[in-house]
């Protein structure tokens, strides 16, 4: 069945592609040439400090793939789910504008910061700009940030396992495939092409088994099902965090790559050919300025779609690894800007999946909306109704994979982070097992409320605030170069206002329940325990205040440094060497 081109998501996907093309070939090129004045002849840290371990030149294609894999997670896929509550048009505008003028600016510029500052990562860059206190506050901020990411991702994977029967079995199938692949590659040195083919076949079989078995059913463990799934997931993540990387996380990530890439390509293709397949846009373009239980469009829209438009996490990846391995400066644009704009495309394709599902699914907050939308877009060219059950499992696994692979790394990061952080009489907190357990138990407690949308907004707010800090840091260094810093300072100012407002909104929301003005935000079964629900709301109220205060301090210090740099008053010690 053919429908009018304008009634399908196809036009919007093409429009977004054109916008991203403009951002990459015109705006990013201008910044690259006129502000950073990149040169192939300027030596990069990868060559200057070549050690074959941390610093070594890597092909732009490899770095692009690495950067994209490191930055793409659930953000661009589930963020639009919350944003589409205001209608698909505001979500689309934010994804496109955010990517064009803010997202790539941060990713590209933070890579350049590292390249021009002897391969320094975010901590030392902040230290250079605002001193030791700033660096310590960044550390404290990151601690809370990691806990909130973990809470959101652990809860969501548990929710997916609970809602989609068969998805748990398929996930276990993929993990077992990962273990087999790991043994074949690392122990038996098997041929990589053969192992890859085996990995793809076993992954497809795992999804098939999950679909055929469709077990366990929803709420298998009774009212506490999601929490039980959280504990099962925590056990898997615990093992992943303590065994050597090549034994578990590395092969699992390797196997997960294929459904992750395949899913994105299928959805984009499905959206592009939607005029031919007859899949129509049925979500309203605009629904309203305020959504009950979510909040006002400003600032919530801008923090709900986090990684799909801009994300602070990307600045950590760009400065800790990518910037140290950049072969020549001219690679920064394809790697930093290219990977970010590709993630923008991922967010746009996820939005396309939400555009074609019933508005009821969004209104009722059904997490299955993405899976249903993606299946609708892809089923017509993949076997029609006969393939729907398989595709539903495949796209539920697609969601699980994006969350679980990043969460495995976050849990491991938390463990290594704790080992470095806790010294002296606190050293026991850095113990391998205790640190891992802490990094899993605390998020599970955070997620007990079941109010994942509020948690997501906290995650988005803290994540975007980190991005605002990174953008201000970029503006500071660019101002020191006596180059136009508006390209980073204007987005930084916008993101600072938006994210601090979003944190304030959530503090207000949890404050209402903490002070008994409203009922605590909680979902069954926790609603049966009002005392516990209240305690968790109060905890979030306090965490919100802590994040807000840390954010205010960092923003003030960084903006102060920026204006000093603009006036040429930066002290010699704060000048990058």
């Amino acid at each position, binding site marked *: 069945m053919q429908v009018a081109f304008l009634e399908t998501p196809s036009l919007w996907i093409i429009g977004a592609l054109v916008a991203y093309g403009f951002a990459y070939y015109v705006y990013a090129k201008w910044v690259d040439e006129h502000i950073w004045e990149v040169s192939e002849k*300027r030596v990069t840290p990868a060559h200057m400090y070549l050690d074959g371990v941390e610093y070594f030149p890597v092909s732009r294609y490899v770095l692009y793939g690495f950067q994209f894999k*490191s930055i793409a997670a659930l953000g661009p896929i589930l963020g639009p789910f919350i944003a589409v509550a205001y209608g698909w048009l505001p979500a689309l505008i934010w994804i496109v504008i955010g990517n064009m003028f803010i997202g790539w600016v941060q990713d590209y510029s933070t890579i350049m910061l590292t390249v021009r500052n002897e391969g320094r990562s975010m901590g030392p860059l902040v230290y250079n700009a605002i001193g030791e206190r700033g660096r310590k506050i960044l550390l404290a901020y990151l601690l809370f940030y990691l806990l909130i990411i973990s809470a959101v991702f652990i809860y969501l994977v548990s929710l997916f396992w609970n809602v989609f029967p068969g998805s748990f079995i398929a996930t276990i199938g993929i993990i077992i495939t990962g273990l087999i692949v790991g043994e074949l590659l690392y122990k038996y040195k098997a041929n990589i092409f053969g192992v890859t083919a085996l990995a793809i076949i076993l992954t497809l079989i795992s999804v098939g088994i999950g679909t055929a078995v469709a077990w366990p059913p929803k709420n298998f463990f009774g009212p506490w099902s999601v929490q039980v799934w959280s504990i099962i997931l925590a056990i898997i993540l615990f093992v992943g965090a303590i065994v050597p990387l090549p034994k578990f996380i590395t092969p699992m990530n390797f196997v997960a*790559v294929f459904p992750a890439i395949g899913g994105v390509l299928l959805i984009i293709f499905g959206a592009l050919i939607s005029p031919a397949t007859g899949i129509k846009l049925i979500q309203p373009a605009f629904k309203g300025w305020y959504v009950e239980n979510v909040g006002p469009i400003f600032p919530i829209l801008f923090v709900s779609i986090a990684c799909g438009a801009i994300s602070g996490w990307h600045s950590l990846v760009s400065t800790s690894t990518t910037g140290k391995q950049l072969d020549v400066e001219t690679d920064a644009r394809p790697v930093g800007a290219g990977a970010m704009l590709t993630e923008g495309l991922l967010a746009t394709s996820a939005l396309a999946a939400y555009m074609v599902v019933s508005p009821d699914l969004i209104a009722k907050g059904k997490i299955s909306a993405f899976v249903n939308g993606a299946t609708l877009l892809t089923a017509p060219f993949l076997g029609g109704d006969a393939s729907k059950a398989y595709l539903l499992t495949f796209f539920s696994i697609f969601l699980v994979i994006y969350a679980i692979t990043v969460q495995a790394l976050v849990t491991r990061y938390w463990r290594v982070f704790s080992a470095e952080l806790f010294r002296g009489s606190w050293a026991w907190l850095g113990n391998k097992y205790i640190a891992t357990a802490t990094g899993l138990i605390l998020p599970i407690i955070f997620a007990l409320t079941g109010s994942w949308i509020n948690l997501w907004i906290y995650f988005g707010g803290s994540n975007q605030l980190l991005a605002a800090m990174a953008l201000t840091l970029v503006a500071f260094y660019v101002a020191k170069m006596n180059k136009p810093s508006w390209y980073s300072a204007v987005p930084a100012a916008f993101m600072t206002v938006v994210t601090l407002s979003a944190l304030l909104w959530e503090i207000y929301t949890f404050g209402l329940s903490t002070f008994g003005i409203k009922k605590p935000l909680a979902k069954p079964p926790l609603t049966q325990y009002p005392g516990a629900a209240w305690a968790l709301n109060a905890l979030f109220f306090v965490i919100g205040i802590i994040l807000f205060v840390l954010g205010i301090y960092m923003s003030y210090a960084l903006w102060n440094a920026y204006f000093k740099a603009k006036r040429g008053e930066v002290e010699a010690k704060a000048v990058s060497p």
Partner: protein
Amino acid sequence: MSDWEVIPIPLFGRKKKEKEEEKKEGVSEALKGVLYGFAVHGAATAALKTRMHMEHLFMLMTLGDMLGFPIIPPYYSLKILPYVVPNIKSWKERLFRERDFTDLLSG
């Protein structure tokens, strides 16, 4: 004028010939690279880092006296010395490099 001068080091700059060769590599090489980066590069970097930490320990135990940590008698250090000479410079650089908590993200 930016803070950073262009330092023309021909060794590190990409030469015209290399660029032409790169173009010839074509789409298949680019795809291979992207797939490798997506699937394996992070793991390869992490494996290198694990090896680095093991090497640090080994070098510190065997040649610690070079840095003021005489862990094994110099006689044995001297016997090992010829085999580890190529690694000494990069070992010292890596060991003494200050690492920040934000560096931990890379493995």
